[in-house]
């Protein structure tokens, strides 16, 4: 397992915390929390824990591209069990949409 940390610029803020996905084979879970009081509201803080080592660059590129289009500030925790970049993107978008939508 590898733990990767990234930061990206942001100018939107999630409305509420959201949890999507599951740490199942080929999938991942995402926990997204809006910035707490005192935390910067212009930064995406990402921590990835992945079961597959050695894909730092791929993670960086996938995340950078996503947060360029979806600059949603907050603490993003990704617990990954070998998801492909496609699945990662779907989960990221699912989390972003849910975090801006009605609180369920």
């Amino acid at each position: 397992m590898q733990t990767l940390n990234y930061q990206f610029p942001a100018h939107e803020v999630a409305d509420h915390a959201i949890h999507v996905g599951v740490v199942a084979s080929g999938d991942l879970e995402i926990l997204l929390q809006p910035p707490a009081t005192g935390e910067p509201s212009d930064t995406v803080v990402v921590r990835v824990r992945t079961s597959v080592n050695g894909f730092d660059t791929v993670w960086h590129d996938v995340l950078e591209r996503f947060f360029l289009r979806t600059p949603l500030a907050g603490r993003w925790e990704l617990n990954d069990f070998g998801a492909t970049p496609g699945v990662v993107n779907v989960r990221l978008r699912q989390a972003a949409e849910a975090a801006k939508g009605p609180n369920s």
Partner: protein
Amino acid sequence: MTDMNADTALLPGQTWAQLLARRSFIELNALGRATALLDPGSLRVLAGPFDRLESPWLAPQGITPQADDGTVIARGTVDGRPVVIASIEQGFQGGGTGEVSGAKISQALLLAAADSRAGTPTAGVILFETGGVRLQEANLGLNAVAEICSAILDLRPLAPVIGIVAGTVGSFGGMSIAAGLCTRLIVTPQARIGLNGPAVIEQEGGIDEFDSHDHALIWAVDGGEQRYATGLADDLVPDDADLLRGALVEAINGGVTEPGRHRSERLDVLASRLATLDPAANPVDPRELRTLWGRSYEPVATTFAVGTTPTGQDADPPVTRGRTWLLALTGAAPQPIIPSVASVTTDSARYLAIVPDPDNRFYRARKGEVGVTEALALAQAVRDVIEADGDVEQKRAIVAVVDLPSQAYGRYEEIAGLHQAMAAATDAYHAARMAGHPIVAVVVGTALSGGFLTHGLQANQILALDDPGVEIHAMHEEAAARITLRTVDELDELAKTIVPMSYDVEDWAKLGYCDGLLEVQDADAPTPRDVATVAAAISDAIDRARRGPIDLSTRLDSEAAVATRQASRAVRDLLAQQWNPES
């Protein structure tokens, strides 16, 4: 319309139109399943992902943890009645029971029991999708299953505990014992219930014993329809969220079952059913059981006489640590309950041990494994003591002398419902503990897996000899290595830092449920001093059991637990704190 008939086997009670309109339950994740069963808007998740009670044991092994450890605890109502649902996420670690996920289930059930006692009956619902104990947390997972079984039995007289096995993982391993303890068990045709999974049986017994690639065989033995048709499940419902909710409403409204009438208490039924089977001489086809046993859980006619010829009695019984210590501790010759379950009854205690029976008609249980007849005999022996001491103030102790290689891995064990037989023994031990009998387990040899769950892990007090021949674990090392895709060397290396994975009894003693590690000179041929040491320790343990709680809370409150089971203790605190909504 023969096609239609063939298909309706998979869709009982559903037309094609209903099938197309249905909302699949199986396709939902753990949270989705809990949501689908509860009254709309009533769901409240406890110890959810943002509480981050994840397993402390996975990341150090290089395995990504899940924030809620793969088990959703949800409170809410079903048809207006308070319930707590434990929904296992089958995608995460195959639904395996770990320290945290297991503690979440047992503590939720205990809180439901407390509410029920206080006047608000709160039903428990467990959605079983699990391969059993999570081998990466081995001994803590095994103990967690014992605590879940105990909690189900604590709640069951106060409010119904409903088990649902929907699929697709199904219920395997020790959690199937828990399923066998439920007030009612609801299954779909896609469900499977068994103690040992097909791959494990194939690996332990060879491909002739069980071909794990033979899907027809797997479903014929473990499938939801088979379990329902043979009375080991109560409701067979198609994979439809609304129909499953309907079955759950009915089950909860049905309330608690009268004492003595639970499947796991019906030793009469179990005995009569097992008496129809003789796998060594006359192997049965699983389909035959549907007529032989039928759907109702009532005694059946014995078709041929078995067990009437005393087997293994003429020859000298094999010498094992179990038999040796039984004799040494009591000074009396062990008497067979059945040839493979030996007992000595003294004025103050009943001692029980599983011993090899080379002539066992269940041929996979000839080396001292806990099989169906052993589980039944244990249950009977324990229930006999409860009954005999009914009016006595000072209940006799029950001492489980534990030396067993494992549960029996066999095709006919699964056909016969080994999980249900083990549930009967688990239930009996729990009942004895609740009735005030001090239960002391003393591990003198190997204590592995489901065997230990059945014979030992419901005890108030657990002692073990500090001896290299003593091994307590969820699975023997070679098999655990194969299942977790590691080598034995890798497992040994991991065990140095991951305490619950260790095969060393001194590490096991750190897990919080060891009440004494006893030094002896010769565990195989105990010296008089060894015997005196162990006898004194048992006597002390009996005293502690009489003074201490009759539940299993000492396993969380012991000094070792404070150090090692911090995660379980955090689960207990957090669930208690979140149990009632903030006002």
